């Protein structure tokens, strides 16, 4: 990843830093918190429902895990490929810090049409950051995926919350990715030096 040409201006540390992807550790403090939470919950389920209760949940979740594994692989490969294929200069121009409202709109549209779940959204967003999108456009994309993307809405929200509620909630959410991206840009240029963002 570090072989990517650095076409961004020297005062733009964003792209240069996000290119290093190898720092990620499979386990960190955050994973540890979740692991502790899972262990406590499993113990409570065992005390309440016995071994059968634990087994029912475990077998269901293991099969769910097996089901989504191929999709996680597809998402990771898609992210890796996009980071390599997307032209750095064009992405910086259309999604970079100077891309204006158009960049936020492109980010929003991209997040809304992106297929799949978190296993695609985050690797793809990470790839965009790596090839020159700024925080604002990437925020617009992630917020758009989570609030107006059709994947989760069709698969989960409509069956559980009902179609009326879901569509109405999406309509209310329509301006939010753009507003979040704009707010992100506005705040980012003001705090980036103070917080070493």
């Amino acid at each position, binding site marked *: 990843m570090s072989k990517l040409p650095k076409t961004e201006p020297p005062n733009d540390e964003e792209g240069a*830093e996000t290119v290093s*992807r190898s720092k*990620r*550790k*499979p386990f960190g403090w*955050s*994973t540890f918190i*979740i*692991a502790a*939470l*899972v262990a406590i*919950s*499993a113990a409570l*389920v065992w005390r309440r*429902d016995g071994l059968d209760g634990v087994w029912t949940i*475990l077998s269901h*979740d*293991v099969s769910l*895990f097996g089901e989504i*594994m191929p*999709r*996680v692989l*597809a*998402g*990771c*490969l*898609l*992210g890796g*490929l996009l*980071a*390599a*294929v997307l032209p750095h200069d064009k992405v910086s121009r259309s999604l970079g810090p100077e891309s204006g409202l158009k960049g936020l709109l492109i980010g929003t549209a991209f997040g809304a049409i992106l*297929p*799949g779940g*978190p*296993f695609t959204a*985050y*690797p793809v967003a*990470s790839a965009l950051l790596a090839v020159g999108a700024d*925080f604002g456009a990437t*925020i617009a994309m992630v*917020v758009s995926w989570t*609030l107006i993307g059709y994947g*989760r809405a*069709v*698969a989960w*929200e409509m069956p*559980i*919350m009902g179609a*009326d*509620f879901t*569509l*109405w*909630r999406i309509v*209310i*959410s329509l301006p*939010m990715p753009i507003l979040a991206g704009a*707010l*992100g840009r506005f705040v980012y240029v003001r705090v980036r030096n103070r917080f070493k*963002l």
Partner: protein
Amino acid sequence: MTALIIDILLWGSLIGVSVIAWRQDKAVLGTALRNGGMDFINIVPRIALGVIGSGFIAAIIPSEVIVGGLGPDTGWLGVATAVVAGAATPGGPVVGFSIGAVALKSGGGTPQVVAYVVAWALFAFQRVILWEIPFMPARFVWFRCAVSVPFPFLAAAIVMVIGKP
């Protein structure tokens, strides 16, 4: 059926982008696939923990406490409660939306329920920790979450103005 369509779109995009990479440069395709594969290997332990563990967390969370905090007369305090509850709700989409649905059916306030669902979508801690941080630079993730905080409140305000569906 939905899952099938999503799979087709996902693998279709993957094949499409692979073909583009292959036509650009065969070495690029190899490197990119290897990078993606390494990401996958690094991420699997966390995903395993999250997916396999979330059933246990979902089984013990006191959803009635959350539902009780989203009443129609709770006003902005209820909206704030909903935002915190949305961020704190563990488990996958079934848990988050089910709590929302129960709250709505048991007479919860619509602005509060919408704030809950939007907050859950924007920054449910389990998704942030298990999915977003492993894939993205942590400083981006924290910044995005901070910037997202006003939006559940904005959603509730819009609902208060335009009313129910």
